[in-house]
């Protein structure tokens, strides 16, 4: 009985501390949808959990089998989600991809090779 009481007391003492810790948490990512009113390819909950699987599956089909024009596409993501200010999905934590990935501490490799700017057209050439 005494042990239970002391445990309860400890919890009561720790509560304010826990609340303080909560206040210091990293804020949730604030990336706004840049083209509101348009419909994503799947409900947000499914996209949040499964976008990496969807894109991974699609990339193999597109590259290896040559299947194009399907529902899931990385360029499709950028078309709606690139920032209106910078035109990109990366660059700072207000931008769509980087904001969430910085929050989740997940490294983002896509943009080493893929172009993160919507409607980008490479200009000039140095053969």
């Amino acid at each position, binding site marked *: 009985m005494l042990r239970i009481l002391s445990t309860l007391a400890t919890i009561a003492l720790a509560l304010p501390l826990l609340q303080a810790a909560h206040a210091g948490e990293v804020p949730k990512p604030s990336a706004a949808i840049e083209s509101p009113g348009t419909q994503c390819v799947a409900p947000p909950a499914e996209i949040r959990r499964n976008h990496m699987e969807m894109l991974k599956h699609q*990339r*193999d*089909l597109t*590259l*290896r*089998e*040559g*299947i*194009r*024009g*399907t529902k899931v596409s990385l*360029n499709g993501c*950028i078309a709606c989600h690139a920032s209106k200010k910078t035109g990109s999905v990366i660059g700072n934590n207000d931008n769509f991809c980087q904001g969430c990935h910085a929050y989740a501490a997940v490294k983002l490799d896509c943009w*080493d*090779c*893929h*172009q993160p*700017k919507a*409607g*980008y*057209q*490479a*200009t*000039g*050439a*140095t*053969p």
Partner: protein
Amino acid sequence: MTENARRGFLAAGATFAGAIAVAPGLHLIAPALARGAGEPASNANRWGLLIDTNKCSASCDACVKACATENGITEQVADPRQRSQWIRKIDIKEKNGRQHSLPMMCQHCSDPPCVDVCPTGASMKRADGIVLVDRHVCIGCRYCMMACPYKARSFVHEPLTEQNPQVPRGIGCVEACTLCVHRVDKGQLPACVEACTEGAMLFGNLADPNSEISRRIAHEATTQVRADLKLNTGVRYQGI
């Protein structure tokens, strides 16, 4: 011929020409070749090139420039040996003194050595014969660069930011000519073929015996570079 009749004749001619060149810069190979959404590449096609070196001038590098523009190869690299080279012009001299100039790029072999040696399966050949690097699994070991008899592949040493959205390419991966796979899938010609004002490059389907490229290979003297290796290249040359 009255003015009106002449107009009618010209209009009919323009309609005929329209089947080949829809608009400046947009050439259809044949309407059936642009695949529908969700349709995979098929082995009913084997894409290839026939390059006539008699029409290729040593001073011209239009194909090389067009390739760089189309594929976003715009980066300045400090060391020229590290520059990406998807297509290059080479000048050759035969023992009898005859000189040729020709573009050299990935030969899209039927039995590609780069695919044989790749330890991760990143080097791959698509059903329609186009040899590609799957950069998602490329670890940048560069075995394929050593295996390629044509020195067709390059390695990206520096971070890139100016990629064309249709042509992803980046640091740490090997890359080479894709035969403009993103254009071919839309029914367009590769950028180099479209840019060649001399008509020295012919793109077509080697698997179709009635295609122009197949007919020319059947009836004219053409050659594969390093035919002794028996790689059955998709890029053939004429005049060397």
